[in-house]
């Protein structure tokens, strides 16, 4: 689902990453939701927790996983920013594009670099909804990135153990749906 208007390349990359890595179909839904309620004028950022909370309330029962895409910069009160946020083993995750773009740092735009970063962050947040926590392997897409050098260093895929867990979880969804498999 998208929060407000999202660029085509962001949406395309999100859809492709899920199909390529997990072999699962993804449907893009334009909810028409307005994110302004989560805008913090003082910080000029959007409160990630509030957006995620609204997504959990909205989450349709037939969806195994809902990933929210947003162009704007996100934060949680404790931290200066977050690239995204997700419920570990829950249905919802959120990815922000702002800090993945070179333009945010007053540099010339690089569409290829942005696509790579967006793919990594979408797979990372989906990984959390598939029960994965941060991985110690810095090459794994599930490794923690607190800055762009770490995002750029990691690969666009899960390491073998994380991949195994992710695929098992996806298979469980296919078999009985999220609610059943969680039970």
């Amino acid at each position, binding site marked *: 689902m998208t929060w407000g208007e999202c660029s085509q390349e962001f949406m395309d990359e999100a859809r492709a990453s899920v199909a390529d890595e997990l072999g699962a179909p993804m449907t893009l839904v334009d909810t028409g939701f307005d994110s302004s309620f989560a805008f913090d004028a003082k910080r000029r950022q959007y409160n990630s927790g*509030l957006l995620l909370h609204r997504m959990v309330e909205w989450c349709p029962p037939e969806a195994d996983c809902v990933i929210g895409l947003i162009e704007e910069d996100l934060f949680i*009160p*404790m*931290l*200066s920013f977050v690239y995204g*946020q997700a419920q*570990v083993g829950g249905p919802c995750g959120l990815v922000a594009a702002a800090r993945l773009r070179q333009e945010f740092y007053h540099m010339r735009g690089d569409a290829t670099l942005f696509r790579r970063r967006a793919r990594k962050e979408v797979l990372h947040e989906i990984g959390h909804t598939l029960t994965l926590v941060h991985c110690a392997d810095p090459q794994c897409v599930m490794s*923690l990135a607190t800055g762009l050098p770490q995002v750029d260093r990691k690969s666009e895929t899960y390491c073998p153990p994380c991949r195994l867990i992710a695929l098992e979880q996806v298979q469980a969804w296919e078999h009985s749906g999220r609610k059943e498999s969680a039970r």
Partner: protein
Amino acid sequence: MKRHWKILIVDDEEVMCESLAAWLREDGYTVEVAFSGREAVAKASKSEYAIYFVDLKMPGGMDGIETLMHIRRTQPEASIIIITAYATVDTAIAAMKEGAQEYIVKPCNPEEISLLVNRIIKVKNLQRENEILRKKLNKHYEFRDIVSKNAKMQELLRLAADVSSLRSTVLIRGASGTGKELVARAIHYSGDRAQKPFIAVSCAALTETLLESELFGYEKGAFTGASGQSRGKFEMADSGTLFLDEIGDISPKLQADLLRVLQERTFYRLGGHQEIRVDVRVIAATSVDLESAIAEGRFRSDLFYRLNVIEMRIPPLRERREDIPLLARHFIEKIAREVNREVADVSESGLRILLDYDWPGNVRELENAIERAIVTSRNRVLTDADFTFLTRDTPAKGSWVLPNVSLADLEKQAISAAIRRTDGNIREAAACLGIDRSTLYDKIRRYDIQR
């Protein structure tokens, strides 16, 4: 590794608590939240957390510093990180003085908080690993750790191996330093209970009330200072072995309590009303002559028979001198490695001194003598020159100068010295003095000698 560690976030703002908790959960930690200082203190009294994030300003009468002070009282090992929106030098100093590990200003960089948490958890993992390794290193004993070719010792070790998997109570008797605890540990680690705890308690080291709470535990408020519930050694040793050293020294009340546990396998914590059932094998040890203690009414005969189901007597070192060369070489190998010295053996002249010495402190004294010689020696082989401290301490025959005292004083001194040398073992002291036990008791009473 991370899931083992729990984190508690304390902040009156729910959104602040929940969002940081969610962020840390993504890192694999188990995270709980508390919305006030009081709630945090209540949670900390029920469960242990490795890290506490505590907001400095909280309403409700308990701010961050006060919360920190309360938590540190019950969990001094916990790492507490104070969070604040406005940094001032005064509050930072106050927080650090009260034992906060860090002081961070929100919002902070994700990298900063991630590094901080990882650093604390890394130290906690190392501490835990160190504790486990230390326990393994200190507590793993087997029969092969007991060095002897003495026939009596061989027989004792065979008996120990035979009874290692039984639940029967064992009474190990022997003078101080003969290795009673070593035998007890070997019995435990060779039997079915090897994977379960081995808990050792020295009964002589504690007063009656302390020993009572140590053995049976206590409930909150059982006595002044009992601020929380505590499990006793009997509970800790459940399904394992409890080693009660110096059993001859316990008070009549504790003797009765112990007898009850041995018979019923149940007991109550001090101040408690709930009966606790345990499966504990008891191995007791003593250097005291329990038969004499029974005769004098200082030790219950029914407890003695309960303890003495399987009796093992470890002979003093002077009665198994053939073990001295073996033990000396065993200790040289062990200690040289520990203190990083290239000492490989002991010469004939060195052994002569060791064989001639009386070893009142038994194997422990021999081990100490070898360590002293290794530390002071500059040679690869220990010689008689390295053991002069043994000959110097023993007065040479015929060189003793009689002090200018009465015969009664002399007798009193001789008896006191014999009792000291034998660690209060009346039978041995009487043998040393060349008199029988009843005569010795008579003289102890007459001269009012402290035992």
